[in-house]
């Protein structure tokens, strides 16, 4: 019983240390991307790698099943895809959907909790952070999970209001490693 009370107290008062999550200057990580359609069919699965450097460099690169990606460097946003061994690059800096997506991604990856709190209501439970948009949004809820010592994100789960769901699982995460020059361009 004492153990249970102790566990409850610990989970209630043991707040996540966001400074640890937002401390790294750079993050590199592999990811699995699962997209669940709203119709409830089996998920579309893909895999890739991302690079993040504060304050606003982010390369989100898919390696399988198709090679494609998104690169955000301050205000510049580019996307690319490789089809039939041919790389097509497009500047989508003025595409509002891409811009909003980029802003959201940077928000979660950088884990700047003060900024997150401007648009989301933040709830913590153990090593899980639940974000609910304060204003009307197409996102219903975002669930972030971190590792046991809460030094790194391990999973991002985004629930849309239409029932769709995206799960991104991170692996081989490295902090404060210099980002290769080849990753700095699309």
């Amino acid at each position: 019983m004492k153990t249970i009370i102790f566990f409850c107290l610990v989970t209630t008062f043991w707040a996540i240390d966001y400074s640890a999550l937002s401390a790294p200057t750079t993050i590199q990580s592999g990811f699995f991307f699962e997209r669940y359609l709203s119709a409830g069919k089996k998920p579309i699965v893909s895999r890739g790698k991302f690079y993040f450097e504060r304050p606003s460099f982010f390369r989100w690169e898919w390696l399988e099943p198709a090679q494609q990606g998104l690169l955000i460097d301050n205000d510049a946003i580019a996307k690319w895809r490789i089809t039939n061994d041919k790389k097509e690059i497009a500047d989508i800096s003025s595409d509002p959907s891409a811009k909003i997506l980029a802003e959201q991604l940077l928000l979660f990856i950088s884990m700047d909790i003060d900024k997150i709190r401007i648009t989301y209501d933040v709830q913590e439970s153990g090593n899980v952070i639940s974000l609910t948009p304060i204003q009307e949004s197409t996102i219903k809820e975002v669930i972030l999970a971190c590792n046991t010592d809460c030094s790194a994100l391990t999973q991002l789960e985004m629930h849309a209001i239409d029932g769709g769901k995206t799960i991104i699982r991170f692996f081989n995460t490295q902090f404060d490693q210099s980002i290769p020059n080849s990753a700095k361009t699309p």
Partner: protein
Amino acid sequence: MVMTPKSIQQEMELFSRAPFSKKTFIVVQSSDPNRLIATSKDVAAALKKFDGFRAAAEIDKSFFISYFYYLPNIWDEELESQIEASLANAQQRIENSAISLTGFESIFAQDIIVADPLSFLEIAAKRLRNLNITDGSMDFKEGFLVSEDGKTAILIYEALEDSLDIRSASKIVNDISQINAALPQDTRIFVMGSARYTQENNDVIKKDVSVVLAISLIALSIIFFLFFRDKAVLFIYIVPMAILIPSAVCTFLFFGELSGITIGFGSVLMGLAIDYTIYIYFAMRVSSATISPTKAARAMLRPVALSAVTSILTFAALYFSYIPFLQQISVFATFGLVCALLIAFIVAPLLFKQRGITEKEFIVSIKISRSLAVVVIVLTIILGLFSTRYITVDSSLDSLNTVSQEFLQDRAIFDKAVGALAVQSGLLFIFGNDQDEALRKSETFAFDNNISLTLSNVLVSQKRAAKNQERWHRFWSDERIFTLKHTFQNSIGKYGLDIEIFDEFFQFLYTANPPLNIPHFELQTIYNPFITYGDRTAVAHIVKETFTSQSDEDIVLLSQDTIQHDLFLAVLEKLFLIITIVLVINCIVVFFFLKNIKLALLTFIPLLCSFAALAIIAAIFSIHINLFSLFAIPLIMGLGVDYAIFVIYQQITTGVLHPPKALLCAYLTSLTGFGSLIFASHKVLFAIGFTVAIGITVVVLVSALLLPPLIKESER
């Protein structure tokens, strides 16, 4: 609408119900294109907190998805051939969709990709773009119309029913100002639409009313200080105020509303109403105390009543213009002048003392010979006639609108953003007994005239929809769908996708029916295609083409040019009617009172000279005559003839009761009324004030200087 003749109000009403006319446009500007959408979203969120803004249904993914499922209804020959051509590279299109589904684009565009994996919308959306209020220079992004340079966005809201009501309009404009104040420095918003026009017009008129009334009161005070300096004169001073309020109340009760222009015209009424009491004041002042006040006033009855009757009948004639604001002015001024006349003859004689003072100060000492007077009059009239060749008439509707510089700048930004189409295109209204019949007639009209009506490409009658669906079913044969499925299977497998993701798409190709959860396509989201007029319904098409006049009464083509032309003709027609009425009335009244044809004709000479002088001034200074400055003509006729009558009575009687000082005072008070309108910003008030002020000045000069030499001794 208050300034248009009732005869063309059907056209104006149709014009005002045109597509997009029931929308309020919130224009968002940002010097940083990257911030535009975010700012627009902030503005949209802020607007939700205010009453009076009902967002037009959002043009988002669901709008386009519902449009996609509407395609079988508009599946005509053109669309079929375009989509058939696109199927040549179906495999590439499918692969593109598959790649998008496995990457980041699936997060925000998955439902569209799954519904339309072959990107038919890319082709069909062009038809919606053609309906755009813009000329194609703006595109829909995130539910906002965004300009090509990404610096201007337009948020579309439904205009509320009472957006023409000044309180609602002011609230809308003020709410926008509040939101604007909270925006960063490099961004701003403003509103365009009926509410802004209402508020702008009201602002101008409110300012004008204060300025004009203040100036006329100050000018009247100066006149009294210079000419009277008499305690009894305080009564003269309060006459205008005493009649202004009851006249306004009477007009309001008669029409159920009171336009700002009518209130602005109060200064004129004040200037005119005072004249009759002034005449009585001077008559009493110069008459001997040996006769009774009533008798002294009665001696003035004939000339003053003659002046009053001509003025009152002139204003009464304005009622036949059937132009709402002129009708209001007609009732307002007629009631006011009748009251002023009654006050002058019933109350004034009891208040003013007879003093037997001879007025000498203002006796005109210039002696003009009869021959010189004739030469000056003839020359003025000839020059006036010659000048008419050089007068330009501005018949544009813009010459009647009065808005602030800020509004003009904002409208220029709006026009530039939406392109010239919204401004320059015509509106084709095709009537039917119901919506479907109107659509059917539109289709027939387009076919008969061999033209393409952009609206008929996206909104079709039931008969056309059925025909198009048959075409869809013929095109999407089992064999074609089977082949397509095969292409899908070959293309998506390598991306780990299962063909069952696209089950709904294939089901749609087979049945032409959208899934149950898809809302019906509502074109009204971006375009008000139907208007109800009486018990009939019309489809409103925006057209670039000009058509020859249609003999079919169910087809009405309107453009700014046609409206302008019809408005001008309608106003001219009314103007000629009013001038004729005023002329006939003046002739009858003047002849009835003077009982002498020559003297009656002489009263019109100052008027002729006045019109000639106006023509000369307009020609020399290249002044454009607008529609409402033409309405000054009957006013000059009705009011100007008063001074001629006064001078003729002065000449044919002893002149004691008609001192020149009375004429000068009466002229100055009238000039005060009309002259103060020159300080109005409202173009209509300015045009009438300027023209009448010049006109009556010439009438007074000619009456005082050139008429006396023309009256023979035998007639005196």
